[in-house]
């Protein structure tokens, strides 16, 4: 069921009467219970789209609907009941604990005095448990690690109890284990709570693994939506991230660098060691070609080159260099 839809949405900025349109005619759908990752090169308009969908910024043209209601016509207070935000700003609040921070998420629901009733308290505690910060509930937020801090911000968004959560680069500034954990957490939350979660990210491989759907943005081709694997198969990734110096490697979901490969070798043999052999060869400038003059046989413990048994990559690259120097 789609909860947020856009109709011919154009996004961009207008400054001093000059309009700068970044993306136009977007028809997007955000479904409940799905994790959607917004990816694309810098400058393709990820943040602008997110800010426009959240109603923080006016669209240049077109409309955004949440449950049949146009977002621009909603009051700030009504929007706060539909969309919760996690932004990139770093917070410095003196004396605030995790509990205090998360309780601010109840702002749109609480009465004018902002009292925390037993029900509110239960919602706040549940949100903190969901992001696994129960043991740090009364810790000062300035004492949290970056990963915990981001989880606390997600708990605040959960406490806001909205059908949609939008996150602007939630994995930036985090190390790999924390990036993986945040992505898994968001994936789990989307499926468990039935919320629609939209996030922008630069983590291509993580997005490919965790996202139910990807919105792939590029300055030229607009926004392509789909299940990650479909976008890989139809070559959308390659088009979006086209460059001379690297390419999107569909076999592993990563970017590979385009090395100038002038020398040709033929490789065959053990499958598990093959991948790393290819990488080493590419870096050293060797193209792998069927039936080339120089043949490398990958064995279980090393390489067989010119009838010579070699055990380290360093030695075998040196050997290759000698062979091509003779040619």
């Amino acid at each position, binding site marked *: 069921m789609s909860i947020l839809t856009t109709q011919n949405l154009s996004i961009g900025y207008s400054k001093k009467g000059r309009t700068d349109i970044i993306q136009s005619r977007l028809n997007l759908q955000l479904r409940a219970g799905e994790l959607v990752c917004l990816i694309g090169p810098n400058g393709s308009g990820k943040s602008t789209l997110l800010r426009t969908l*959240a109603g*923080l910024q006016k669209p240049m043209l077109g409309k955004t609907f949440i449950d049949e209601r146009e977002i621009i016509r909603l*009051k*700030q*207070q*009504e*929007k*706060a*009941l539909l*969309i*919760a*935000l996690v*932004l990139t*700003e770093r*917070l*410095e*609040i*003196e*004396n*605030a604990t995790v509990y*205090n921070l998360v309780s*601010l*998420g109840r*702002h*749109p629901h*609480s009465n*004018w*005095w*902002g009292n925390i009733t037993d029900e509110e308290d239960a919602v706040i505690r549940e949100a903190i448990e969901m992001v696994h910060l129960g043991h740090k509930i*009364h810790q000062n937020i300035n004492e949290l690690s970056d990963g915990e801090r981001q989880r606390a911000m997600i708990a605040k968004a959960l406490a*806001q109890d909205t059908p949609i959560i939008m996150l602007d680069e939630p994995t930036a500034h985090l190390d790999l284990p924390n990036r993986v954990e945040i992505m898994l957490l968001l994936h789990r939350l989307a499926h468990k709570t039935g919320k629609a979660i939209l996030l922008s990210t630069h983590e291509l491989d993580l997005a490919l693994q965790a996202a139910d759907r990807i919105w792939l943005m590029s300055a030229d081709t607009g926004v392509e939506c789909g299940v990650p694997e479909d976008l890989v198969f139809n070559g959308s990734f390659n088009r979006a991230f086209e460059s001379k110096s690297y390419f999107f490697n569909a076999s592993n979901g990563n970017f590979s660098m385009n090395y100038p490969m002038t020398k040709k070798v033929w490789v065959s043999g053990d499958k598990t060691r093959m991948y790393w052999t290819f990488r080493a060869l590419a870096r050293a400038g060797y193209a792998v070609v069927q039936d080339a003059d120089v043949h490398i046989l990958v064995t279980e413990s090393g390489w067989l080159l010119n009838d010579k048994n070699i055990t380290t990559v360093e030695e075998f690259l040196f050997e290759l260099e000698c062979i091509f120097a003779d040619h």
Partner: protein
Amino acid sequence: MKSRSLILFLILSFLAVGLFLTDLAWGSIHISLSEIIDVFFRKSGDGINSEILLNFRLPKAITAVLAGASLSVAGLMMQTLFRNSLADPYILGVSSGASLGVALVMMAATFLPVAFVSSGWALIVAAIIGASVVLILVVGVSFKVHNAVSLLIVGLMFGTIAGSLVSVLQNFSNPDAIKLFVMWTFGSLSAVTWTYMTVLFPVVLIGLGMAFSLQKRLDGLLLGENYARGLGISIQQTRFLIVIATGLLAGGITAFTGPIAFVGVAIPHIARGLFKVSSHKVLLPATILCGASLLLICDIITQIPTYTLPINTVSALFGAPIIIWIILKRR
């Protein structure tokens, strides 16, 4: 957590009451506590002492409480709005605007009737107009400028302009007028008579009421403007209300007592340090109690030497070390 706040509130309340009574008893003429009770409850006692108490020390002590509470609450709101721990009401140009108004009346008002200029109301009206003009300009800019830090800089610039105009006026004034003006900048709690109190008290009450009605939004503003907007807070409206409340509190007090420096910036930090909370539900009453107590202490200190010291000097002597301490602690 809650019980800690409760105990602190009790201690601070007793402290404030104790300081209030000390402030009444203290001074060049000693009045004992029993005499104070006599004057207040039995309507008797020595004629001179009851005159000093009722018409001099009591309004002065009440003014100290009002000024301490108002300036601290205004400071707390400014620090939350600008998310800057060094912000205070005077940064928005409130005191500079008031000074400009007063300077105009004292040094350039040849066109005003002498009777008006020599009465106390002239200065008060001028200070309120001066402070209001600067604040209205700042509010006007706040609708155009969407960024709180830019607004802070604009406020500073307005203050600088007002300050420069005052210097220009001083350059062309006679020494007597300059001395009168310099005396005003020293600040004085005893300038508020019962007549003035009938104006000052309601102004402060409205300002404090506004501050308390904004406490939930102030909590939201701690997250910054974008997050606050995401929580459903109308930033423009909230900012407008905060500036108005600050104008009433800081502008009103400055008009009647002259500028009192550093209270606005220092007290919110003391309250945060004592109570260890971020919620304005607790911080607002905490800053009121701390501010009132501090200004009562300052007022008691000004009475110690044979010559009374200006309140602005004493509060600065207290405030400046606190700001240095904040900066050192932050490292």
